[in-house]
């Protein structure tokens, strides 16, 4: 195999498509190619050539972002799809499809090439049942180790009893955690702990106060979101679910992820007016989510009952009121529809605009206050600067996105790089910081709030002047959507926490054949070990807080 020696430049010459380039780079590794709605190339490779293929794509063609790993079972085979992008240009997408045999679903692990594959493949094993060779840690991830069957597999029997008691499979208090020889101490942080931001269990090994090893144990909030989406019809029954992924007022951003994927799949246009409303409401959600991130991070570093936390919640409340006026809901908005939004701005419009403008006017003074209270505080700086370091290369390997990646200097924001909605018509900037530490992640979020405010202001301007006879909020969408069988797409949006992607494969019915959620928190949380090993417990807590995870989205 000559893959390693191939020296291709990622530039595309005239007349040569990306697919040709990819085929050229990969040589005989590729068995066939497939159709994929938005990937430039979709190649099928043998299950024992995953690592070669991915490293060739990464090293020779610059596909350095393993965005999503989707596993699924067909009548005749299993399939793992590695969806790859470039951090520099996420519109450059390649899907690597790895079929595995039905009798012996074994596929090579991609973990040695991309660290993020670790958790993604564990999930694929857990839910679908593909075994990954060479995987360093082949355990289940969302379900308990004693679970019978693989829930997204075809022969899974939902009615078979699952008898799983904690003490039977993994009693965290059992005695063999105590190693008499070692100087280290095993400590369960969570699932019930004040700083885990939900039900997260971090198995920690301490050397004194220093963190020697962390192993996040997730899945406590697994609600079968993917399966529920597979059981709902495209048109109406899926949209309420995204609000429940990242449930801390970032719902509209999540809804957009589904809307974008489904509209791409079913080829639905969205009226411009609706796009502006979508953009505005999504950015309102982003501010609300970042406020919460800021407030809870302050809790982690300051302690409980601090002024900052309450201030952040007070200001978030204003946004919630605006969103409630717009959508009728405070958290579970269910506001987007395929092809637009549910309804127009509330009447009287002037009142809504005024309320929004009031909020935007007060925002700079409030942010100033936060800077005085938080980022300007010397003790805070002492705590956060140069702790929880996440180097850019490491962040990329783990597929980190969103503020976490941007605080490590990775200039990656899908709103600009893979434009959707109305973002490319508006004037705003992507915020990056080079600090790679907890402090930078806070700063990035606070500055993003300012940028979001800029976007909202421009949207309000546009909406105010929008001609009355051109306010179409939804395009004509058939009552029943049945995309072509085997049409597949992977689409992502920039949610509050980063790249929230949806993979949908249609099976020709009005319900998705496979619905996969690529959660930004899932990938970001994987970096926790890199950030906190060798640092103190308080830094571990601060790093966890700075990742701003929502377990609803991690576990889905």
């Amino acid at each position, binding site marked *: 195999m000559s893959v390693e020696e191939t020296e291709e430049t990622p530039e595309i010459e005239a007349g040569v498509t990306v697919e040709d380039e990819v085929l050229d780079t990969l040589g005989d590794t590729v068995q066939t190619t497939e159709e994929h709605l938005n990937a430039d190339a979709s190649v099928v490779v043998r299950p024992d050539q995953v690592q070669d293929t991915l490293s060739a794509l990464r090293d020779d063609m610059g596909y350095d972002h393993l965005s999503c790993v989707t596993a699924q079972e067909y009548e005749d085979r299993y399939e793992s799809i590695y969806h790859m992008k470039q951090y520099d240009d996420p519109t450059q997408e390649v899907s690597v499809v790895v079929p595995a045999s039905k009798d012996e679903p074994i596929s090579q692990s991609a973990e040695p090439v991309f660290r993020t594959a670790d958790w993604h493949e564990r999930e694929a094993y857990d839910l679908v049942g593909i075994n990954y060779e060479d995987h360093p840690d082949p355990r289940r991830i969302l379900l308990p180790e004693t679970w019978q069957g693989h829930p997204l597999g075809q022969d899974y029997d939902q009615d078979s009893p699952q008898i799983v008691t904690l003490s039977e499979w993994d009693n965290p208090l059992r005695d063999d955690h105590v190693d008499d020889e070692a100087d280290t101490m095993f400590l369960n942080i969570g699932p019930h*702990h004040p700083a885990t931001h939900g039900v997260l269990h971090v198995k920690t090994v301490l050397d004194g*106060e220093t963190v020697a090893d962390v192993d996040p144990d997730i899945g406590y909030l697994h609600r079968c979101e993917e399966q529920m989406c597979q059981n709902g019809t495209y048109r109406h029954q899926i949209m309420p679910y995204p609000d429940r992924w990242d449930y801390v007022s970032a719902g509209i951003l999540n809804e957009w992820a589904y809307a974008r994927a489904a509209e791409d799949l079913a080829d639905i246009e969205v009226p411009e007016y609706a796009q502006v409303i979508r953009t505005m409401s999504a950015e309102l959600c982003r501010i609300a989510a970042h406020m919460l991130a800021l407030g809870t991070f302050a809790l982690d570093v300051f302690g409980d009952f601090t002024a900052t936390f*309450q201030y952040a919640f007070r200001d978030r409340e204003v946004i919630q009121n605006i969103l409630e006026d717009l959508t009728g809901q405070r958290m579970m908005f269910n506001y987007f529809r395929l092809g637009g939004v549910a309804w127009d701005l509330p009447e009287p419009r002037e009142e809504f605009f005024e309320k929004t403008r009031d909020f935007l006017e007060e925002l700079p003074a409030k942010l100033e206050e936060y800077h005085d209270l938080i980022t300007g505080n010397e*003790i805070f700086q002492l705590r956060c600067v140069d702790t929880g370091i996440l180097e850019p290369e490491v962040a990329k390997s783990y597929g980190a996105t969103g503020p976490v990646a941007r605080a490590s200097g990775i200039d990656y924001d899908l709103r600009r790089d893979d434009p959707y909605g109305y973002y490319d018509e508006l004037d705003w900037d992507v915020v990056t910081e080079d600090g790679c530490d907890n402090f930078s992640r806070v700063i990035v979020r606070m500055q993003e709030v300012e940028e979001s405010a800029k976007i909202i202001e421009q949207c309000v301007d546009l909406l105010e002047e929008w001609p009355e006879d051109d306010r179409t909020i939804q395009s004509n969408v058939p009552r029943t959507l049945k995309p072509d069988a085997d049409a597949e797409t992977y689409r992502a949006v920039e949610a509050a926490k980063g790249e929230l992607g949806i993979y949908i494969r249609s099976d020709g019915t009005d319900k998705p054949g496979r619905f996969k959620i690529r959660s930004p928190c899932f990938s970001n949380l994987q970096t926790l070990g890199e950030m906190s090993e060798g640092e103190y*417990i308080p*830094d571990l807590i601060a790093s966890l807080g700075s990742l701003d995870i929502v377990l609803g989205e991690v576990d889905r």
Partner: protein
Amino acid sequence: MATEQLLPETIRTAVGLPDTVLGQGIAAFVGAFLVGSVMLAYTGVAGPWAKRKITAAFTDRIAANRIGPFGLGTIPADALRLLSKELIIPEDVDRPAYDLGPLIVAGSALLGFAVIPMGGLGPLNIQLADPESGLVYVFAVASIATLGLTMAGYASSNKYSMLGALRAIAQNVAYEIPLVLTGASVVLFTQSLQMSEIVAVQQETLVTIAGVSIPSWFAFVNPFAFALFMIANLAEVGRNPFDIPEAPTEIVAGYQTEYSSVYFVLIYLGEFLHIFLGGAIIATLFLGGAAGPGPESIGFLWFTAKIWGVFLFTQWARSAVPRVRIDQLIEIGWKGMLVLSFANLLLTALLVGVIA
């Protein structure tokens, strides 16, 4: 003031008990009972009510307002609630250390009030005892609390408790020394460890500016020592930025993780008593004890205002200041506070030597 009758003596003569060991003992017991009750009452107000109201004011909330005027009725309701909760004692705890810990934490703080001159209230002079080594005694009993915390943390058979106990020891050792050294710099001025004497020295006028005479409280004489003492005291009572031993977001609740019901109340009571004792020491050493405008017979009110002022300060710090990390805490303690307090002691010694 030093010549004034102490509280037990006043009680003994008022009731007409004989001047025997038994009579003195009974009078002392009654006096201690009264002073202890007042302090516990302060704690009762501070814990369920004042703390909530103060933090709420800092954090833009309303807090307790359902029962009685200003929500004051929440105090008996909360007391009843806390005391009637189930006392859960985990299986593997090391008794009786587990049971004694909370008692020592609360008790040691109460002992300290024995020598604090709390000023006059009407005809009474509220001070239980005035030994010549008063200041040494008060520092000594205040640090017994560390023993209680250690017992509580170690006996709880919980890793978070143990981390909390270890942190508490490290913190108390690191900050007790600057605290005592800074206290010693005051003693250099007063030439006495007797509490009433320390207060008496501060009654003289320092300077008179535009007709307003400023007393020679040591907070004015040596503001540097005052600042040092306030900071060390924050660490001593474990409030932000030094609430490391509890650090709820890091180690759940530290040494008190496994305590519930009455034991929990005792530990909390001890913490608040310690804040008030810290306030009492600060008032005595730096703020002229019970001195203030008006007749001496309302001195106790001034004293109360001062210790509540210190309490307010701790709550303010708690609401607004981030927590430092354990290694930073130790570093600040040994490399910063200790050096500064030695410098303060030396400079004060020089100054006193030159003047005297």
